[in-house]
């Protein structure tokens, strides 16, 4: 058993950290204010390799895998949670085409995604709810050489920053009636809906997509007709959950650092408050949570890199890390006292960001439904 990062991974972390610490902070005030993702960072991120971390070199990426991606997302999230949120969904958009796309689809869509010419996005959630995938209303009907899509997708990360969306729609009834499509935002009948106004992760764009007799060429079917559920589940459970977990891990790392800095700098009764046992206990708890979450997140990603199943571990990492980030951020605010709720201090943003990770990409309860199945499997009679 080896818990050490390789020299390559350490260099990767250092490279992303340098980029993140220099390039992201100047954008954060505008991100908080406008809720817009800083698109001008997409190209520089592509040059570093952030956008194409999962994409194979033959399609313009670096193909370094999931542990490397978790390092990247954690480091971005340590500076600003909205960045890994948008990037991890971008990676989902890459992974889904890489896993299920034809050579022609990969050539056409993966290369610009890796090169940062557009962001990626996967649209599963209907207004009827994201977890009840089979119950979705968005439909697709084959007419001649085109599928005609009708319906709406909501709470879609990168909705307005992507040039094309991977959309799951119903081609028939039941679990085997879902299909995945690559939809160009310029396609006739494809429309952008409202932009959501979230209270956290504000710099990551979330919005609605609408399809009004939207015409999608037949060759844009991703995978088999009727294979959409498998496409959605594989992408969400492997790339999505590990990405969401890594986003929360980055926030948790920032919480730990902000709490530690404040505790050692703030003087009360003539001494830094870090000498008070109450504060020390908070720090010990945050520190322990951070280490637990690191183990969960990196193990899930490592399993994926080994080609092993990681759906349960991804669900575990996702639900646990997102909740841990919220709890740690609350403790960090306690440590800060009244400063903690002031906009000048980062911890209030970290709490808002952490709360937004909880329902994103599947609630804790949905993760627990998955995990309960695994937990009870050995006892099944």
């Amino acid at each position, binding site marked *: 058993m080896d818990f050490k990062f390789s*020299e*390559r991974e350490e*260099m*990767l972390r*250092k*490279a992303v950290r*340098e*980029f993140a610490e220099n390039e992201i902070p100047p954008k954060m005030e505008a991100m908080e204010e406008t809720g817009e993702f800083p698109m001008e960072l997409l190209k*520089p991120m592509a*040059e*570093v*390799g952030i956008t194409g*971390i999962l994409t194979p070199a033959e399609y313009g990426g*670096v193909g*370094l895998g999931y542990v*490397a991606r978790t390092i990247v997302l954690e480091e971005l999230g340590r500076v600003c949670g909205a960045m890994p949120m948008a990037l991890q969904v971008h990676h989902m958009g890459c992974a889904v085409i890489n896993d299920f796309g034809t050579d022609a689809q990969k050539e056409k869509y993966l290369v610009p995604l890796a090169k940062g010419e557009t962001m990626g996005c996967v649209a599963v959630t209907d207004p009827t709810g994201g977890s009840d995938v089979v119950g979705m209303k968005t439909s697709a009907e084959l007419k001649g050489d085109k599928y005609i899509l009708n319906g709406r997708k909501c709470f879609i990360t990168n909705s307005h920053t992507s040039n094309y969306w991977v959309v799951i729609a119903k081609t028939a009834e039941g679990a085997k009636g879902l299909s995945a499509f690559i939809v160009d935002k310029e396609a006739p009948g494809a429309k952008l809906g409202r932009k959501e106004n979230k209270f956290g992760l504000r710099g990551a764009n979330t919005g609605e997509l609408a399809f009004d007799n939207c015409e999608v060429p037949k060759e844009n079917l991703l995978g088999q007709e009727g294979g959409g559920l498998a496409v959605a589940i594989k992408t969400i459970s492997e790339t999505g959950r590990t990405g969401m977990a890594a986003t929360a891990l980055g926030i948790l790392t920032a919480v730990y650092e902000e709490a530690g800095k404040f505790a050692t700098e703030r003087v009360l009764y003539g001494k830094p408050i870090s000498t008070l046992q109450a504060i020390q206990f908070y720090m010990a708890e945050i520190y322990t949570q951070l280490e637990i979450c690191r183990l969960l997140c990196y193990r899930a990603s490592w399993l994926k890199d080994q080609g092993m199943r990681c759906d349960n571990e991804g669900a575990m990492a996702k639900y646990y890390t997102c909740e841990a980030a919220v709890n740690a951020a609350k403790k960090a605010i306690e440590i800060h006292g009244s400063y903690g709720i002031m906009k000048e201090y980062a911890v209030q943003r970290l709490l808002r960001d952490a709360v937004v990770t909880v329902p994103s990409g599947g609630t804790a309860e949905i993760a627990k439904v998955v995990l309960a199945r695994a937990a009870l499997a050995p006892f099944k009679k």
Partner: protein
Amino acid sequence: MADKEMNRTIVCIKPVPDPKHWNKVSMDPDTQTLRREGIPGIINPLDKHALEAALSIRDAHGGEVVLLSMAPPFAAPILREGLAMGADRAILLSDPVFAGSDTLATAHILAAGCRWIGEFDLVLCGNMTIDGSTAQVCSQLAELLDLPNVMHVTGLDRQAGDKMTITQKIEHGHVRLEAKPPIVISVRKELNKPRYTSFTGILAAESKTIDVLSNKELGVDPNHVGLNGSPTKMAGLELREFKRARERVGGSPEEIVQALLEKIHRYGII
């Protein structure tokens, strides 16, 4: 442009303690040296600007960028970072006899490194390091190599046909110089914005070579290296404490106000 052999740039880089961890640097009162154990190293920030200049020249005209550093063997990962940024190969000059070298001894060792590499067009250095801040090595190196030296460089344009235009910052402005390689140049941060290390660069660096040379290969006169070869002797090193000065002013309210006003004037506050 000259052939590849002649279009070689040597970039001198120094591993220095990461300023983010300077609060952990302490002083050893016995040896009068800084305790640097456990403090992560980085490439001296100005050296990255020198490296960026070398990489831009190579990207435009071809050739080779060679990193040169005098440091203990544990500095190899720092050189690897320079290779990940894009340098072609690295030479680490490492020998216990080099320990304690001052700027002159360091320049002797670096000059031997340059000669070992062979022919070159340019030697680029950062103007100074963030740990020593002497800004002496570059000029000493140029002197020992018997080459011209320009410091405080904020602009560098390498044209075809062995011509370069250099912008040098001086006290009240800038001087534009024309120069012919080979030349030793030390750069300021205004020169450029160093590129970020890319993941493909990190992967490529894994197969690049770092040659570690001892004084056996370099053959520098032992009287010119280490503590023996260092004319600079540390007279003393002390930690400065930064505390607010406190003074109690007594008397009647009028006298206190008068005394305060005098002090405010004396310190030039108003």
